[in-house]
């Protein structure tokens, strides 16, 4: 082995560039150029409704940022993200703790929990839409069987938001659980043993040892779930269509409407850029937490 000659550095660089170039070209073609194209389109007044377009500077951005539809969607996006996180994070952690104990039936329990994660969001949306139908859905049917009043899950403005959060959480709690479980199983043993020696009870172990050690994992989970909540589209589109009114129309759905229903490609591109910019601080935060 020692007799083999090291190739000259210039040659290494050339080979490296040659080997990497297909990947870079692919990245350029499918990510960077489309992103730049989107940015370029957002500064024009392009639309599928008119054959020509011209440069309009920041007009699309100004129109969006001064429209009530945009701010309503921001509000809906925030509410759905915060509520989803408030449900998914503690429940996911709780489930991870339970599964981590390896009690009897844990494998069955874990497999059952993972099932929703394997379904496509469209199928999930359709299934819950049927179940939440106020006239003949199984949920209200069950409530009525116990003498409870039916709830208009999808027709009431507040309940429609709650319904979206419920369905999103039903599908994604398992994801949170999996990451938390991986975090729990990777915890160093010595701090726990030290806490044991010091006579800490279970609550104190979680409060002062386990949860602080899990914080980086939790941060990753929070970032991923916030990004996913902002991107949430399929479930809302199928479940409520953004309604009633615009009660559940989040930024993704508004962007879809602008681009694919109103055919206003430039306004849709501008909103895409705004969403990207809104998400950027999260990415920075994540990078800071995971240098």
């Amino acid at each position, binding site marked *: 082995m020692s007799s083999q000659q090291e190739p000259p550095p210039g040659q290494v660089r050339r080979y490296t560039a040659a080997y990497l170039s297909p990947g870079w070209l692919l990245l350029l073609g499918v990510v960077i*150029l489309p992103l*730049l*194209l989107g940015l*370029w389109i957002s500064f024009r007044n*392009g639309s*599928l*409704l*008119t*054959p*020509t*377009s011209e440069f309009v500077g920041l007009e699309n951005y100004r129109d969006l940022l001064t429209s009530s539809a945009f701010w309503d969607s921001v509000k809906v996006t925030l509410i759905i993200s915060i509520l989803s996180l408030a449900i998914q994070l503690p429940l996911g952690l709780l489930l991870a703790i339970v599964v981590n104990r390896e009690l009897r039936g844990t494998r069955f329990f874990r497999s059952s929990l993972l099932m929703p994660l394997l379904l496509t969001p469209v199928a999930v949306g359709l299934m819950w839409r049927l179940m939440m*139908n*106020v*006239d*003949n859905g199984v949920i209200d049917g069950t409530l009525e069987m116990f003498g409870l009043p*039916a709830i*208009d899950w*999808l*027709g*009431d*403005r507040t309940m429609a938001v709650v319904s979206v959060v419920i369905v999103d959480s039903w599908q994604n709690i398992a994801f949170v659980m999996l990451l938390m479980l991986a975090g729990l199983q990777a915890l160093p043993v010595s701090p726990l043993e030290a806490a044991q020696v010091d006579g800490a009870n279970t609550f104190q172990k979680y409060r002062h040892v386990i949860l602080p050690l899990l914080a980086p994992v939790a941060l990753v989970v929070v970032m991923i779930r916030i990004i996913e909540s902002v991107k949430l589209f399929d479930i809302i589109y199928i479940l*409520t*269509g*953004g*309604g*009633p*009114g*615009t009660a559940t129309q989040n930024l993704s759905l508004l962007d879809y*409407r602008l681009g*694919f*229903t*109103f*055919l*206003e490609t430039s306004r849709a591109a501008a909103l895409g850029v705004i969403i990207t910019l809104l998400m950027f601080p999260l990415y920075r935060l994540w990078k800071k937490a995971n240098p």
Partner: protein
Amino acid sequence: MQSQSNPAKRRRHRRTAVAAIAGASAMSLLLGACSSSSSAPSGDAASGGGTASEITAFLIPSPTEEAIKKSLPDCEAKTGVKVTIVDAPYSDAHQKMLLSFQAKQGAYDIVQYDNPYLAPFASQNALAELDSYLGKSTAYDIGDFVQPLQDYSKYDGVTYGLNLSTEPFLLWYRTDIYDQLGLKVPTTWDEYLANAQTIQESGLADGQVIANASSVNSWWWLQLLWSFGGDLQDASGNVTLDTPEAQKATEFMKSLLAVSPQSATTATGDDATTLFTTQDVGQMINYSGYYPVITDPAQSKFVDKIATASIPKGDTDITQLTGWNIGIPADSKAKDSAWAVLECLLGKDNAVKFIENGAAAIGRTSVVTDPDLTAKYPYIALLGPASETGRRLPALVQWAEVSNQIGVHVQDMLTGKTSVQDGLSSMQSEVSATLGN
């Protein structure tokens, strides 16, 4: 600043900057070449339509597409033109057509489209004018259509398509419930509401159902607005939505919602049909295009207990008309061949066979008065009177956005988020801004 003092890094920065500028320039040139200029192709078919032995038809999955496929072999034999069919679901179809029109490569020779897209297509000269063909064609016989159906495919007075289906609003009602409660078929909206209230109070069924989902309720709301004497715009094009007529129409829609199944608040046209065919609902206002679903025992529990009638009248006698169009793109290089195929498929002689092949009926006078056909499909007889009082949805380039704006405000008013007065006022401002008033 430190990096600027390093020559190697400076060179790298310069190279990066040059590459970025070159890339951006190349992209601009590329995009500039791709973005179409304003030179629209001639849409006048009379100026030499072109022929080909093979053409391509872009269709949208529907019973009508199936009927076209069944009818094509005869027409291919008759015209000597082979037709290749491509299709895309409704949700993508019109975007694909628009992209194809803007590319001007003549990808399609025939296109099926929904009537609200006539204005966006025609306004950018994407469709060929068909008046010159129609003027000469005895096989198609445009005179076999009443005036509202002749106008159905026109934009700014020019015909850009043929009627591929005629689907007006109809009243659908349950004969067993009507008989049990001694109700008469309503001829006015007040009678319709009174019937719905009677049915609701009887406990036999919910009073009625229409679509209230914000994505589609504008269509039902416009019907009521027209019936109560209002309109979207006045003769000068000014938006007229904050009016007493609009208030009356909205209050009436709220009254209807009070005697509907609970889930009707978010029901689309499909949902309304499902409610009507699977649970006890006394009446429904919905399009004639739902006839195959409503009369299909596999999808409808009450096939033998459902009848149809013309929709009630208000202050005016207007029935909303919808239905497919089919046309020839302006960039087609084989317009004459495409017309020959369309003339064969949709000509007067093939009209009955086309329906028997599964297509939604086209409201030709010879069809709606055909005794055999109307005996077999009773709803077809109603297409005649509905077409005579027929009015299509507004032919606006921005219809999709306007429809959404109306839909959201109507649902806000129906669900009590805003008062009718405030909702109409906001609707007026938003739609005016969209239409540039």
